[in-house]
């Protein structure tokens, strides 16, 4: 019989203790503010427009000129979300076998992929009472590029889906300030942003639904604070579609239409305009000279 060594038995106690530490894996963040009601309001306008009022509204928005494609920073939000979603999908791979939770912070320069002109001019062509009149357009004209501008978003991932609502901010970016009672204003400034994707987005999936963007604490580059609550019933909210069009929820009475409720005005990148009420959609040519109606199915 050989002599027995007992030193090994000590290892049985110490080694498991050394390796017993657990990995502290991140979990999904709590859901952000619920904007689903606001989002749905764009899908269900409440007003029924007289035909004559449609052209008035379209002409009014056409007078604002062609808004920058993708509406500056708001349009870039779609790119930010899409890029981030693809990165996370690439990183976590094998998605059918695993569930992913956690957070991501995404940043994108406001000038990335810019199709906007380097000099941004506020467009304020209000036909009637203009609640943004307090904004001096000349004060928010910004020259040069927005090299320091950046979008920053906290993106929650839950059960392998990007959470429906995201929070973030825009610093020194081109912002759209829509109004339920006036035409939208495009300005350079900073704001806190909340985004509703319409539904949670599976990792790796394409972002196809319009996204709702809500801006709060808007501040122009000259330090002027902008009261977005006064701009629209739900604050400064727009929806950005997959093709870069902007949807704005407006009150037709602002434009002289003798009806109550809301309609959705869509500003397409080619300058054409859509007006949707409870019954259907008017598609108006660039300039709003003529509109064709198609009833909702």
């Amino acid at each position: 019989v050989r002599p027995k060594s007992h030193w090994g038995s000590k290892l049985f106690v110490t080694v498991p203790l050394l390796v017993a530490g657990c990995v502290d894996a991140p979990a999904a963040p709590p859901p952000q503010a619920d904007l689903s009601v606001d989002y749905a309001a764009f899908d269900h306008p409440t007003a029924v427009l007289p035909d004559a009022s449609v052209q008035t509204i379209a002409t009014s928005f056409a007078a604002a000129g062609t808004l920058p494609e993708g509406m500056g920073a708001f349009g870039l939000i779609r790119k930010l979300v899409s890029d981030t979603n693809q990165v996370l999908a690439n990183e976590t791979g094998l998605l059918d076998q695993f569930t992913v939770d956690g957070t991501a912070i995404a940043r994108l320069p406001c000038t990335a992929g810019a199709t906007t002109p380097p000099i941004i001019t506020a467009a304020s062509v209000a036909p009637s009472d203009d609640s943004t009149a307090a904004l001096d357009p000349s004060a928010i004209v910004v020259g040069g590029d927005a090299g320091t501008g950046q979008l920053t978003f906290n993106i929650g991932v839950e059960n392998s889906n990007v959470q429906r609502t995201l929070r973030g901010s825009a610093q020194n970016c081109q912002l759209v300030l829509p109004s339920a009672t006036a035409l939208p204003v495009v300005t350079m400034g900073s704001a806190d942003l909340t985004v509703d994707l319409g539904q949670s987005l599976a990792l790796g999936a394409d972002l196809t639904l319009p996204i709702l963007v809500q801006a709060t604490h808007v501040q122009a580059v000259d330090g002027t604070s902008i009261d977005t609550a006064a701009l629209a019933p739900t604050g400064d909210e727009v929806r950005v579609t997959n093709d870069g069009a902007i949807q704005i929820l407006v009150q037709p009475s602002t434009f002289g239409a003798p009806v109550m409720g809301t309609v959705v005005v869509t500003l397409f990148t080619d300058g054409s305009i859509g007006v949707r009420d409870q019954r259907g959609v008017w598609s108006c040519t660039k300039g709003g000279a003529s509109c064709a109606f198609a009833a909702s199915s």
Partner: protein
Amino acid sequence: VRVRSFFLTGTLLGVALALSGAARADDSPQRSARGTVSVSTSENAAPHDTQRFDRTAYTPDQGHLDVGIESVEFAPLDQLTFGTYVPTWLLTPLLGAPVPTGFVKVRTPFIGPVVASLRANVIYFSGASLRSQFAEAASADGSLWIVPVELAVSAHPMPHLSESLELMYVGVTGNGDADGSTTIRGSAAATSVTLSSLSELRVNSAFAVTLMGRVLVHQDAVSVQGNATSDGTQVDFDLGVRRRNSFVACVVPGVELDFGKAHLDLGLGYGSYWLPVVELPLTSYGLVPEANLYARF
């Protein structure tokens, strides 16, 4: 480090092992024809001549060298064994760099009816070897450590029957970066605990039947931190990746054939397949092969 690289690396090892005819890289099988061996003060605790060592607490006799398609190991003492895995070295041409592996196993002396052992394995993937996991990357660097630690307990309730239980902890940690269309930098970590049972009924000196069962009793989420830049969007992420199915197990009946110094273990069962060497289970269910060929000197 991409999560998928963990599993791709493990899969690569698994394929290599399968091709080489080995399914389990652990302890090489030396059964003992161990002449002088196994000093036992308790008849019940001592292994008989052809006792296998993988997934048991038993160890080779002092001075014995085992050479197999899974591993090469040497026992300087009855209670101590060192070794390395063969397939990881064979992968060198494929990965472009060696993948160092090693293990040490210590066991208690035979002082009662039950014997216990502790075995620690280390598998290290260098940046060079990881580079092959980023085929699309212009460059890649980093490291990946996989550390399976096994605590085993064995007993002979009857002269020809051996019963063993093994608890295996696998720690995985890594970091790295890759530059390509997407620049990635990050780290990841994961742990899992597997409980195994091996029953071995020896029919005669050349033949035995076995029944192995394994169940994943705990697995932390893989924790992945890092950052990536894609098309101007910079993403800092902190994610947890969890397995979807909660029950991961397998049952594998098999046989042991002994031809003098040569030994062959074969088995075919059903359930989840634990990747050899890295000891991480696949999620999907299917046939589970077990094979090992080794010689003892």
